[in-house]
């Protein structure tokens, strides 16, 4: 008998190579697409920040639908209740959330915060808005009063006709507006173009706004702008204390510039749901432009410092009852919109406090003083909320100090 006649015993080792190869292939299949995408250098024509801002200002809002992932690394204490209550805007304070966004580019939009087996939806149709929470099957319907509604319709008609009333300072052309805005921003920041990038599979420019002032908590703000539609696709806010990952990041992971289905944008309260009606006052046009009229601050509000290190102080507030109060009450607080002083910071705050023209329908029913106790820590001056981007100090004598500055700065001021 020779060697050739010996049946070859199939090597066990050869068999075990199969799962090894499969594992490598599978891992590769999952990791490769993002790597390939990032390796794919987008080649867009170079633009200056000024040109980019002009384009953005001139761009018409476009219909789109997409998925947005929002990640906060604010350094706040963990909020375990977010896990238990399903889709709730409180979840936005920490961790990562997924939102789905639809808009027809005009008056109608829907934003849904997705929870596992739950959803919190905000549907806006002109001056009307609904929120729907699947967890408690509750609808809040926000409307304007009849008088406000008439005024809103008139404004909307004017906007459609292109004859917006002159507001303080006038409404400049997009080019002028952009220039003005840029000048405003550049007063306290350096604005530069960042590397071109790809967001949600789309080529995008990146605008980097860096505060000139070193004493602020904000390191830089990076906005990715879709090269084709000039739609902001992603905003990253970096803390000056952490340069490894952005403290706040909100951006599309998936976007399509198509008009959403009408069924998506329509909303009527489902049968059996608890419906609450809230009438929201339409803000006065003149009060909405703090930059153009810095002298007309609401009573009880004072501003210290300039630019990024601005600290806003409210005095004479009953914080405890405010916390327990309803969102409508919050909307009536003078200067409820957080004001930092620079336009980009203002934009930033508005970005993360989903608000829209009809007031503050999406300010959630932030329940409870429990949450307040969880988020803040006791300091000699009162209670302090300290995050990587923003510090809030509530003093025992009823003042609230807010600023994108280190907590020590606020405590020194209090």
């Amino acid at each position, binding site marked *: *008998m*020779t060697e*050739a*006649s*010996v*049946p*070859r*015993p*199939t090597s*066990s080792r050869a068999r075990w190579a199969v799962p090894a190869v499969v594992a490598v292939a599978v891992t590769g299949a999952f990791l490769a697409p993002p790597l390939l995408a990032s390796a794919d250098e987008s080649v867009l024509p170079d633009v200056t920040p000024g040109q980019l801002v002009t384009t953005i200002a001139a761009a018409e809002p476009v219909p789109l639908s997409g998925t947005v992932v929002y990640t906060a690394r604010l350094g706040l204490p963990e909020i375990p209740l977010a896990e238990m209550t399903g889709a709730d805007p409180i979840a936005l304070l920490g961790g990562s959330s997924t939102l789905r966004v639809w808009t027809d580019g005009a008056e109608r939009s829907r934003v849904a915060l997705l929870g596992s087996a739950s959803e919190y939806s905000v549907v806006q149709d002109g001056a009307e808005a609904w929120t729907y929470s699947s967890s408690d099957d509750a609808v809040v319907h926000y409307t304007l009063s009849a008088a406000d509604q008439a005024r809103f319709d008139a404004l909307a008609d004017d906007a459609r006709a292109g004859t917006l009333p002159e507001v303080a300072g006038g409404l400049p052309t997009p080019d002028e507006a952009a220039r003005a805005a840029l000048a405003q921003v550049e007063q306290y920041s350096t604005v530069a173009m960042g590397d071109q990038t790809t967001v949600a599979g789309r080529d995008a420019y990146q605008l980097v706004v860096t505060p000139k002032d070193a004493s602020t908590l904000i390191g830089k703000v990076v906005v990715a702008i879709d090269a084709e539609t000039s739609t902001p696709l992603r905003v990253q806010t970096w803390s000056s204390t952490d340069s490894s990952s952005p403290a706040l990041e909100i951006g599309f992971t998936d976007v399509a510039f198509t008009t959403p289905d009408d069924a998506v944008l329509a909303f009527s309260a489902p049968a059996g749901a608890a419906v609450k009606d809230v009438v929201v006052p339409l803000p006065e046009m003149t009060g909405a432009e703090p930059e153009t009229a810095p002298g007309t601050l609401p009573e009880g509000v004072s501003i210290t410092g300039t630019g990024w290190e601005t600290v806003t102080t409210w005095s004479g507030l009953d914080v405890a009852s405010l916390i327990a109060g309803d969102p409508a009450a919050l909307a009536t607080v003078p200067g409820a919109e957080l004001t930092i002083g620079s336009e980009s910071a203002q934009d930033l705050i508005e970005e993360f406090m989903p608000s829209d023209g009809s007031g503050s329908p999406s300010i959630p029913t932030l329940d409870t003083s429990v949450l307040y106790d969880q988020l803040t820590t006791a300091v000699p001056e009162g209670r302090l909320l300290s995050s990587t981007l923003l510090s809030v100090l509530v003093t025992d004598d009823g003042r609230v100090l807010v600023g994108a500055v280190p907590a020590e700065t606020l405590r020194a001021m209090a």
Partner: protein
Amino acid sequence: MTASGTRSSSVPRDRLRPAGSTEPAGADVELDASDVTALAVRTEGLTKRFRSGQLAVDGIGLRVPRGSVYGFLGPNGSGKTTTIRMLLGLVRPTSGVAWLLGEPMPDGAGHVLPRVGALVEGPAFHPYLGGRANLARLDASDATADPRTARRRSDEALERVGLTAAASKPYRQYSLGMKQRLGLAAALLRPRELLVLDEPTNGLDPQGTREVRLLIRELADAGTTVLVSSHLLTEIEQVCTHLGIMGRGKLLVQGERQVLTERGVARVTVTTAGEQVGAAAEVLTGLGLAEVLADGVTLHALLGATAPEEVSAAIVNAGLDLVGLQVRRPSLEELFVELTGEGFDVAR
């Protein structure tokens, strides 16, 4: 020798092709063609070392001729079952090779095992299924079995082992003997060229053991090669044409039963008149017999190559009275003890 030598005359034409038919030697042209056709089971240096390091089977070279009834003997733990598992492709050899009906194992399992019926280390069936359902399950697993004849074949197999009455009874209600019979029925589901029966008489009463022996003989007469293992030599010794004896993982001896039994060292016992014992012992020693021992008027000695007639003639020629002369060859059991230094485990 060839399988057809002793059995082919009784092979029914419709049951089995004659062994030694013109089957080509497969892909393996180097293999001695006569070996392939003549041997139902052949192994070369078959070795199994378990992961624990225990050497269960140590380089054995089995030769089971076609048409034979091969008694695979050895005490418990001598490596019989592991060898059988390797033959059937259940356990992968550490080294060495095995052929079943000329096909290499385990690679040829799909081709060759349908022609092999097996009972491995006792019967094992689904306890909540009846005998017939269990057979149906095994038959359904056989990709080469014809589903149209499945019912008839399983009924025949049950009939053959006397389980027809209990065919629908759940297996867990079977007695040990009935379980063993169902195992045999499974091995007989299809016409087989080779039956590998591991301890088929285990758990059977003497009557059952006799029936199994009869069954084996019947199958062998029909031309089926049977490899039957046992740790109880006497139970199968009578039906075997060939024997292989395992001990501590080694194949100590194998061959035709006849040859093996004659191979044992014969002893002679000579009885003389009382006062002649010393003289007789001298005569035996003079003949060259070893280990001459006196026990009263009786002498024992190893016969060796000397013929018994020479012994009697020498004693008579020396003028001594020969009262009795007895030649004893060792039984297989004694042969086994001689080879392994171990007794059969009768406690099991």
